[in-house]
């Protein structure tokens, strides 16, 4: 162990690296305080402090009377990297999948006409998808695409193909994304679909993607459990 650093910090680093390397995995117990104090030959107070560091970092969850568990991993949402849910999930070592809950052709109506810059009577294709990681619900997405920019859109299996892939295949050049993030409290049906408690805090992402002619080619609303996401961005000074 490195000299100079407090013992409990060294221990919390060791435990952290075990979690990051996957030796200790989500849902598992960590060894008891007594076992850990034997393993590291330090007293239990030091172990308790080391655990507390990881609880505050969100890597561990303590449940009274049950013990200490490995928390679910949060994934970084890098704003500048034109990031997205599939990439986020792949980075965090879970297998992404998608379930199409609903799809329809309908008139745009006032809200989507404004977002997509089309008229209210124009048709749109609406797609509601549940995104999963290791078969666990992560995000709920409501997507609208102006009808006609993709031929035979009803015939495309969006459980297998990503929307951006499909758009690129139809020679749509994706050039700009406008996004907003806000936080809200979940109500049904989103809470039920994402398997979170009603009134728990969620993150709402609204994005609109534009092509090289600055025409909107899709708009998506994403509901995501706030425990699943951490937003990151960067700027440079002149």
């Amino acid at each position, binding site marked *: 162990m490195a000299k100079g650093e407090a013992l409990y910090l060294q221990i919390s680093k060791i435990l952290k690296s075990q979690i990051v390397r996957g030796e200790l995995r989500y849902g598992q117990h960590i060894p008891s305080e007594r076992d850990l104090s034997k393993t590291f030959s330090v007293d239990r107070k030091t172990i308790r402090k080391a655990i507390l560091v990881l609880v505050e970092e969100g890597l561990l969850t303590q449940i009274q009377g049950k013990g200490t568990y490995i928390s679910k991993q949060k994934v970084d949402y890098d704003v500048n990297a034109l990031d997205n849910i599939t990439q986020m999930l792949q980075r965090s070592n879970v297998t992404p999948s998608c379930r199409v809950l609903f799809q329809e052709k309908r008139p745009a109506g006032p809200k989507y006409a404004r977002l997509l810059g089309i008229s209210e009577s124009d048709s749109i294709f609406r797609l509601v998808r549940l995104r999963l990681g290791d078969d666990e619900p992560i995000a709920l997405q409501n997507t609208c695409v102006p009808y006609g920019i993709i031929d035979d859109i009803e015939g495309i299996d969006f459980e297998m193909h990503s929307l951006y892939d499909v758009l690129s295949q139809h020679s749509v050049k994706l050039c700009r994304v406008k996004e*907003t993030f806000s936080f809200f409290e979940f109500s049904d049906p989103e809470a039920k679909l994402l398997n979170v408690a009603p009134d728990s805090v969620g993150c709402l992402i609204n994005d609109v993607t534009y092509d090289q002619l600055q025409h909107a080619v899709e708009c998506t609303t994403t509901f995501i459990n706030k425990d699943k996401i951490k937003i990151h961005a960067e700027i440079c000074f002149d």
Partner: protein
Amino acid sequence: MKNSLRSGDQLPSERELCEILSVSRMTLRDSLKKLCNTGTVETIQGKGTFVAPKRIRHNLMNFSVGDNDPELNRQYKQISTEKISVEESVSRLYGIPRGNDFYQIKRLLIFDPRRMAVEILFFTPSYYAAVDKSKLGSVSVVELCGNIQKPGFERATIDIDVGRATFEEGVWLGISEGEAVTRERLAFYGETGMPGAYAVLTSYAKYVYYYANLVSKRPFEGSPTI
């Protein structure tokens, strides 16, 4: 709601709304709850339900706050300035290296009449010496840091998380302890590649939203898969 109700307006009473919309009390309560959860309306106990104020935009492209609304009357109220040695709890809460000396400045960001955010700034002594203190009451932390010439900053990062307000944050923001707040952690990096300043902004989650506008130099073919 086609703008016939503006922020701050009071909604008719539950009974009146039931009559106007000809729905049952249960249905009405469900939909009001939903609007309350999304921050569209807010209920003030003993007073009634009001249309919530417009959310303030935090721009992730330049880290500015409220830059899209020229009508906002921005003020910074300084709470305290002190030299601290970063101990464990501060280090853990704000992600700042332990054992270093920092100047810590607490400010309250006010968009009259709303208290928007509690801001805690940390400067290393050399950067603190270069800060224009006369601007502490008027400009944002990004402007403050951007104007420092020597030693100067090269880049800044932001990480946003959401949590529950501590008692102290609740008092400063005028909300209850345990309400959802966003915490923005900013780090300002100098030429050495090490952060010379940090800032932590805590805001009431229902009063803010974050905005990004990303232009790709080349079309991003299929790789980002929303």
